[in-house]
């Protein structure tokens, strides 16, 4: 029989759909009768969504990066022209 501790050990695999069918049956059976583990899984899913929605830290210096990319792109365009004239 799967115990709560074992269920917690499988919880991440449950979220990622990585359980074998045997494990899946055991997890389902356990969750059907264990309110504490149901709460744990529900709140684990909430914390997953919290991380998804946690605001991103901004890129260090977007403007400088874009400038460098533009310069790179123009160098590329000049090389292409140079090649075309050969």
């Amino acid at each position: 029989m799967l115990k709560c501790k074992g269920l917690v050990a499988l919880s991440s695999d449950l979220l990622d759909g990585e359980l074998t069918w045997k494990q899946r049956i055991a997890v389902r059976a356990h969750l059907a009768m264990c309110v504490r583990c149901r709460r744990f899984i529900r709140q684990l899913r909430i914390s997953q969504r919290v991380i998804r929605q946690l605001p991103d830290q901004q890129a260090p210096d977007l403007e400088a990066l874009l400038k460098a990319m533009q310069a790179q792109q123009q160098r590329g365009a000049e090389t292409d022209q140079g090649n075309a004239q050969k």
Partner: protein
Amino acid sequence: MPNEQDLIQRLLKGEQAAYRELVQQYQGAMRAVAIAIVGSASADEVVQDSWLAVVRNLQGFAGRASLKTWLLTITANTAKSRLRKQRRDVSLEDVSGPHGTIDDARFAADGHWGRAPTLWHTDSPEALLNEQALRECLEHTLATLSELQRSVLLLRERQALELPDICNLLDISHSNVRVLLHRARLSVFATLEHFEETGEC
């Protein structure tokens, strides 16, 4: 994806707004990959070099892979070529966050919960994130995870990458990715639980 094709056409024409869009959309994922491989000290440099490589190679991007996969592969390659020394061993050392994790101490000898999870006051991530103190607390927890652990978590949860993609980009085994992800999630869970119980970090 039609939007992706459209974006690539605009990039090829050299449209600056398109570059801005591209960077804003993918910078976070690229950073997570770079941090996982070279560590945060040189990650920004790797990301910058990767973007320049993207610009150089855009003509040759044939759309065989998704744009995101292509960008992250360039980032991973740039990061790996920067590693002068042998690749650091994948550390599976258990670094749990400041609020611990869900470990053996939470269970009774018979394997049932000893101290069961407490009920949170809301099911809504938005409501939870409304609190600035909690957002800062989560940032703090993420910062204390190992760089690899944090990157795997962000690539999976925020960037929605599949596990095999994470394995390929970071050169770590499927089972190691699962271990890293599991521990990171439990640290985040423990942080939220602690905050719900005490109202502070």
